[in-house]
């Protein structure tokens, strides 16, 4: 069937609703990448079989949906039950018959599968009561976890394409632009450029042919919101792009997806095929006379292709080398034609903005940063996963209330945001409301919403070196400051972590950082020094310890760190089992000893020690002892 008018869409929507409501009870199995890794597919299949065998689908209107990521990947596989609003965590396939028996038929809870609050150890049954979910407000991720991403009708039942229908039949392209302007939405890819302004700039560029692109090259390590959106609700991306194309008068679109995201490619491809089939994409969309089609392009694995001009070159089949953007890509982008490129999350929000109105979106967030923002909360935090919150939420609320605090209740040291272009924010700034401006002021940036929590076992020099090493590998090599500068910067950091640092190294790092910031061609090089400068700003003493004392305060830099077991060791024998070099000797219930010759300072023992009896100290002291 093809939808050929506004009324036909309404009928299709009603049909989808009826079908959805026909299922009085639903089991939602999270099939995001995280849960799939822990066996969600088997769980979903087990539910399907069990229900078929018992004919529950007919009798009680029970249905199973494999949905996108629920976000709470840490506790996967996740299974939610509607209408009860119940959530089971860490569900295994073999548990399925028991769940059907007890929970579905017997309507009783299985306490062992409920979420346990790490803060007060209480078990929580209701989805909405779990702090991780309770505090969220979802716009871009509105349907993720609620719908089956491979089922168009399910998406439509949850208002997918309602915004598009409104745009096509009730609004002119300029009215769509005005609505987006009212929303105040800014780009969710990192830099935070105003969406409506970007669109207007493209629209005013001369020429008949223009492109609408979606940046799904989520390269920031530690961020995976775009992945979850593309996997869990691909239709929201398509809908946003079609609306954008309608506003701009574009007829061709591309989605550039990282090759590391195979499931996202599959789900997007499927969504495109489905949408074309019913006339939501392609020629004469919904009979409105508007034509627009989308193609998927898989990236080749290059972080720099997240940069707009590099992405466009990559789309054209070339190496991902950025160009100077003195002439904006809105005027001269893909194939040198006017182009709008927005991030996945940006596009995913457009449908909701048009559907509910720009003012609805603008009512959320802060003065300059409107709406909600998706973050991936990861690292040394108890509840890791994907969240969406109004702009202006404080870091403390995110890390402690939603994230449940630092893993193992260790001291908090910093939170890294913005990926390799961002910076590390220290404890004293935890009450910072998160928006574009505040993060930039703190020496970091929004980036693609990765938040990596770091505890006292994280060395800030090592973290800065990690990002420099990452970028050294990812620099395209076109411009001198980035190519040569990163290489030299990495060399300087190697000196520090190996205890070869000397006075003046910090100043040398700072001077090079300044040259790279000013001189580099694209944002990759220009922002590459951010992790360096922010760690220098807030954790300078750690740098000084590496240089002056040849010591790594966090006990991470191996070349200069030694390990020792303290007398309070209870001889549990956990550490020798994990030691990769068999450097730990000791019989059970007796004090264990580390052989410094064999020890490679990897820290595996410290991580497993239940009594915190292993300490690190500068290797240099070891040499001093020997001399004595």
């Amino acid at each position, binding site marked *: 069937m093809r939808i050929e008018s506004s009324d036909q869409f309404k009928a299709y929507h009603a049909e989808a609703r009826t079908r959805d409501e026909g299922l009085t009870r639903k089991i939602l199995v999270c099939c995001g990448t995280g849960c799939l890794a822990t066996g969600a597919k088997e769980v979903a299949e087990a539910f399907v079989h069990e229900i078929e065998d018992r004919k529950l689908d007919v009798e009680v209107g029970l249905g199973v949906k494999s949905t996108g990521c629920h976000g709470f990947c840490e506790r996967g596989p996740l299974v939610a039950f509607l209408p009860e609003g119940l959530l089971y965590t860490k569900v295994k396939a073999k548990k399925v018959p028991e769940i059907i028996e007890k929970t579905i038929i017997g309507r009783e809870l299985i306490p062992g599968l409920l979420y346990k609050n790490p803060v007060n150890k209480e078990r929580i049954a209701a989805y909405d009561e779990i702090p991780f979910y309770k505090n969220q407000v979802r716009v871009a991720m509105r349907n993720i976890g609620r719908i089956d991403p491979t089922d168009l009708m399910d998406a439509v039942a949850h208002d997918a394409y309602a915004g598009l229908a409104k745009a096509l039949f009730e609004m002119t392209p300029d009215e769509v632009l005005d609505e987006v302007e009212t929303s105040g939405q800014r780009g969710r890819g990192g830099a935070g450029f105003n969406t409506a302004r970007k669109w207007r700039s493209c629209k005013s560029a001369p020429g008949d042919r223009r492109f609408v692109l979606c940046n799904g090259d989520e390269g920031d390590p530690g961020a995976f919101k775009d992945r979850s959106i593309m996997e869990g609700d691909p239709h929201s991306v398509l809908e946003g792009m079609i609306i954008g194309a309608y506003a701009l008068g574009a007829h061709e679109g591309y989605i550039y997806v990282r090759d590391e995201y195979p499931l996202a490619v599959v789900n997007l491809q499927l969504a495109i095929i489905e949408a074309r089939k019913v006339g939501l994409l392609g020629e004469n969309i919904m009979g409105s006379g508007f034509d627009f089609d989308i193609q998927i392009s898989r990236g080749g694995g*290059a972080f720099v292709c997240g940069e707009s001009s590099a992405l466009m070159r990559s789309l054209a089949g070339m190496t991902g080398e950025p160009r100077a953007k*003195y002439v904006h890509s809105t005027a001269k982008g893909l194939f040198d034609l006017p182009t709008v490129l927005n991030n996945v999350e940006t596009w995913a929000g457009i449908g909701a903005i048009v559907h509910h109105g720009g003012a609805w979106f603008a009512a959320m967030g802060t003065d300059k940063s409107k709406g909600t923002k998706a973050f991936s909360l990861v690292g040394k935090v108890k509840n890791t996963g994907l969240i969406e919150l109004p702009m202006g939420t404080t870091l403390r609320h995110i890390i402690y209330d939603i994230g449940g605090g630092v893993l193992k209740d260790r001291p908090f040291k910093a939170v890294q945001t913005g990926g390799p272009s961002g910076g590390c924010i220290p404890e004293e700034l935890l009450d910072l409301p998160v928006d574009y401006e505040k993060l930039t002021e703190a020496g970091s940036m929004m980036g693609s919403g990765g938040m990596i929590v770091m505890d006292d076992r994280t060395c800030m020099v090592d973290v800065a070196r990690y990002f420099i090493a990452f970028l050294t590998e990812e620099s395209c090599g*076109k*411009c001198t400051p980035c190519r*040569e*500068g990163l290489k*030299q910067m990495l060399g300087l950091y190697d000196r520090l972590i190996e205890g070869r640092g000397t006075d003046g190294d910090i100043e040398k790092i700072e001077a090079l950082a300044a040259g790279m910031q000013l*001189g580099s061609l694209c944002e990759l090089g220009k922002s590459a020094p951010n992790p360096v400068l922010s760690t220098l700003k807030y954790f300078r003493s750690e740098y000084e310890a590496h240089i002056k004392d040849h010591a790594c305060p966090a006990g991470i830099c191996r070349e200069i760190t030694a390990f020792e077991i303290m007398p309070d060791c209870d001889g549990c024998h956990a550490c020798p089992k994990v030691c990769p070099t068999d450097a730990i000797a000791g019989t059970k219930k007796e004090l264990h000893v580390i052989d410094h010759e064999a020890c490679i300072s990897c820290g595996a023992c410290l991580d497993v020690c239940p009594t915190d009896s292993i300490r690190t100290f500068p290797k240099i002291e070891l040499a001093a002892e020997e001399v004595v």
Partner: protein
Amino acid sequence: MPTLTVNGRKVTVGDDVYILEACRAAGVEVPTLCNFDGLEPWGGCRLCVVDMSLEKWDDDWFKLVTACNHPVEEGMTVVTDSERVLATRRVVLDLLLARCPDTPLIQRLAAELGVDETSYEKNPEHTDCILCGLCTRVCDHIGVSAIASTDRGWGREIAPPFNEPPPDCIGCLACAEVCPTDHIPFATSNVKRTIWGKDFEMLRDPKTGEAVITKAQAEHFAERSGVPMTYFETSDKSKRLEVAKTFEKLQVVK
């Protein structure tokens, strides 16, 4: 025809001109390594950075841009010798000097900015290649694209495919001629030319026997430009002789 100010001097230039050309028109020298007049600006070496301010901006607001590829605008102010311009150029040359410590051109440019010795770790492997990309861009212009950049980041190199004699190369030497550091070796004799490890047969003038150009080059250009192949087969000297002979025949007054 926009008028702009370069280092306090007013200069009027053409419409589709970049800052670098305006600087030259104003008699201001801006160093550059990857720019070449016949080729599209590339903006890779970052040596030509200048401070730039537009009329609509606040007076004290300047942006550091590359002169080679930033279009001029009416009322623009350009400063080529501000402290941060020089500091940035110094970092660029310092880094290039670490990469190519023995390359005379880099030594000279660095010394002009007061960098006599690199402050960074010297490249243990000798190279004169500064990755300015001129060779590959010229090769693209010639229309053969026999060489290109390979790998990325620090590992970036200019190389023929598979690091073997490039099948598409026509031996025209354009890459070697344009290379600012003379990094690309070649050899030409009366019968043979070798570049990128590939040997080329030379076309030889039928009368004098001297080498004209490579056969591959003649074939490529004959096809590309529509100029008959016969044009390429004789030396310029022989061709002048032919012209002279024709002229003699055309004498109207004996």
